[in-house]
């Protein structure tokens, strides 16, 4: 552990990265066909699969003219044997809680578009996250996968007709008659781990095991912070917290992450049907 600490003083980590460098990431969308949108993210050893299903349901009572998002995280036993049965529930609740908080901000997604009939029907997006392999930094990878899956989500258009006072809904069967969700301002979670006296972005499993405390923040493309959470048994100095958020790391890294993700997603969409979806067959 000492080795790792000494490393960081000179901005050089175990695998040669700087303190603010992410590991190599790969994304792929449209992996599962039963869903309205899906994505798979591989961040070194971490493998996460997200599926989004859009269903009609009743809106939340306090927001009658907006759609809803429901997050569900499933830690598969493939990742670690400790997740067998109900072992992974604590971690799952943490991740879904953090994502809920990050997406709670009204500026992120235009949920009004998801409203069909105010007070009665709206689109509910069930976002299901499946953790397939744990290689450190689960929160960041999960948020990236969620954003990619939402980008890929296609919601069928609904026509509302009024027939003698009774509302009738008609969901279009045409696979091309769909609307997409605007995810430009959706947040990504950036986790900063404190190891020794410095903090690093994207901790690997080894680094996570020797970190004292973590600060997770949801950051959007233009630098707005939507959620903040401190985790871990160590304590953080208030100045270092400020440092992490304001001066630099958090915001900068968050913006860069969002930008790279959007570029990659747009690139993939441009390739369109030419690229084969390989999924796990690669």
């Amino acid at each position: 552990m000492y080795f790792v600490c000494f490393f960081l003083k000179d901005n050089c980590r175990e695998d040669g990265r700087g303190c603010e460098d992410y590991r190599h990431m790969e994304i792929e969308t449209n992996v599962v066909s039963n869903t309205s949108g899906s994505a798979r993210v591989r961040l070194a050893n971490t493998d996460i699969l997200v599926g989004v299903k859009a269903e009609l349901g009743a809106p939340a009572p306090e927001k009658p003219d907006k759609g809803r998002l429901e997050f569900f995280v499933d830690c598969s036993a493939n990742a670690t044997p400790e997740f067998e049965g109900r072992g992974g529930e604590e971690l799952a609740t943490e991740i879904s809680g953090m994502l809920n908080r990050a997406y709670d901000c009204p500026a992120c997604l235009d949920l009004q578009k998801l409203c069909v009939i105010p007070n009665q029907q709206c689109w509910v997006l069930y976002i299901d996250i499946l953790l397939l392999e744990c290689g450190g930094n689960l929160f960041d990878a999960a948020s990236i996968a969620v954003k990619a899956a939402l980008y890929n989500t296609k919601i069928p258009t609904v026509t509302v007709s009024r027939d003698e006072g009774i509302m009738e809904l008609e969901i279009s069967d045409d696979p091309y008659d769909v609307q997409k969700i605007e995810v430009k301002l959706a947040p990504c979670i950036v986790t900063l781990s404190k190891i020794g006296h410095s903090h690093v972005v994207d901790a690997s499993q080894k680094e996570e095991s020797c970190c004292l405390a973590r600060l997770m923040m949801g950051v959007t493309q233009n630098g707005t912070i939507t959620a903040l959470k401190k985790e871990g048994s160590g304590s953080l100095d208030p100045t270092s917290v400020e440092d992490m958020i304001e001066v630099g790391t958090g915001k900068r890294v968050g913006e860069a992450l969002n930008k790279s993700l959007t570029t990659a997603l747009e690139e993939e969409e441009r390739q369109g049907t030419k690229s084969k979806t390989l999924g796990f067959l690669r």
Partner: protein
Amino acid sequence: MAGLELLSDQGFRIDGRRVHELRKIQCRLGVFSQADGSAYIEQGNTKVLAAIRGSKQKTLHDKVLVNCQYSMATFSTGERKRRPRGDRKSQEMTMHLRQTFDAAILTNLYPRSQIDIFVEVLQSDGGNYCASVNAATLALIDAGIPLKDYVCACSASFVNDSPIVDINYLEESSGKPEIIVATLPKSEQIVFLEMNSRLHEDNLSKVVDTAVKGCKDVYQILDTAVRDHVSQVATVHGWEN
């Protein structure tokens, strides 16, 4: 069922296959690096991942304990599932998988340890058990765990007086009889057999034979894939004959 005929007069099924044709199978060994062994299989539209871990818990003295877990992703079915595992169907599947692999693994070579088999269904379009068994077999081979033989599974049904092989979700939910068989292909021994719905006993042997033949075909495909994988890796390793 109004509209859709399971078997047309020309001998074509709903998805265009003939009665004896299997769905397209694609597979890959060694998908994950952290598990001892892993595999991914696609049988038509059904996609299953399997991972194997060996753990060192002192349980049985003279042989290994085989532990399975079957879980389905909540987005795998057409209608969203509430819980990935823990419901009765999953527990039944888990038990079946465990029985199947208990018979196939050479258990006395691993005393005092446990082999965990974790199966995750990513997309479900019928034949979940069969795809799970095939994926788990590939994963066990990838992990280097000694097996008596491959375990291949296949399903069959009986429609309009002819047995059809490898049924998909629509054919499963139509109420026709369904037979699922898992065999050790070389010795032609059956390790698991299950039947649903009603079937006249005169037709039973025909349908079981069809399913067993289906297993043999699956075995050919899996064997080719394993051989390809082994020969590629061995070449890179530089192992000579």
